[in-house]
């Protein structure tokens, strides 16, 4: 089974209460937004962290992507708030 590793950062990580998850890799044309909706439907901290996609950003295989990007063959998805470095 092909799997997709999912990493969480900042308050997304705190609300979910986990650093990461592993799911079966969805169909290649499903998007990051689709996967976020799927995770949010788990309820609890997932719904709280992932319910408002306007507040979320993502990276596929360590490259920033917009949320309507298809997951394709990516192995790692990271979900996080807008960055605040510098």
């Amino acid at each position, binding site marked *: 089974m092909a799997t997709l590793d999912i990493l969480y950062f900042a308050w997304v990580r705190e609300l979910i209460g986990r650093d990461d998850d592993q799911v079966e890799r969805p169909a290649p044309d499903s998007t990051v937004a689709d996967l976020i909706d799927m995770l949010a439907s788990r309820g609890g901290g997932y719904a709280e962290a992932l319910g408002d996609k306007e507040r979320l950003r993502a990276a596929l295989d360590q490259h920033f992507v917009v949320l309507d990007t298809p997951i394709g063959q990516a192995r790692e998805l990271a979900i996080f708030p807008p960055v*605040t470095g510098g």
Partner: protein
Amino acid sequence: MKQVSVQAEDFDVAAELSALEQVGGGGVASFTGIVRGENDLTALELQHYPAMTAPQVERIVEEAMTRWPLLGVRVIHRVGRLSPGDRIVFVGTASRHRTAALESCAFLIDWLKSHAPFWKKEHFADRDPTWVEAKAEDEAKAYGWTK
């Protein structure tokens, strides 16, 4: 010379500037970011995405090097728990002429704020810690560099 570091340890600004002065350019520009101690801040925690951070900062440096004729670029970004007054970030650029050095330095710090996977959490003496919200103006500033 091109060097990126993501580290918990402090750095020596004088040593970094001295290295940039030796790459044969006509000028060195730099920016040092310091943790502000306002609003009773007791600590600033920097979280990052370890597998992505250094490669992404390298890509930002590559972008700067395609836009300006640079002889040297040095970026240091600290992670972990910092105190008010601590150095948090250093950007140094060396070029033959001042304009390239100054502009690329400003570009790099703007892009580090909006294009690199770091998240700041503020800790206070008398209330719960809070994650810093990204500022729309920072994103606008970074996109202002898009040509």
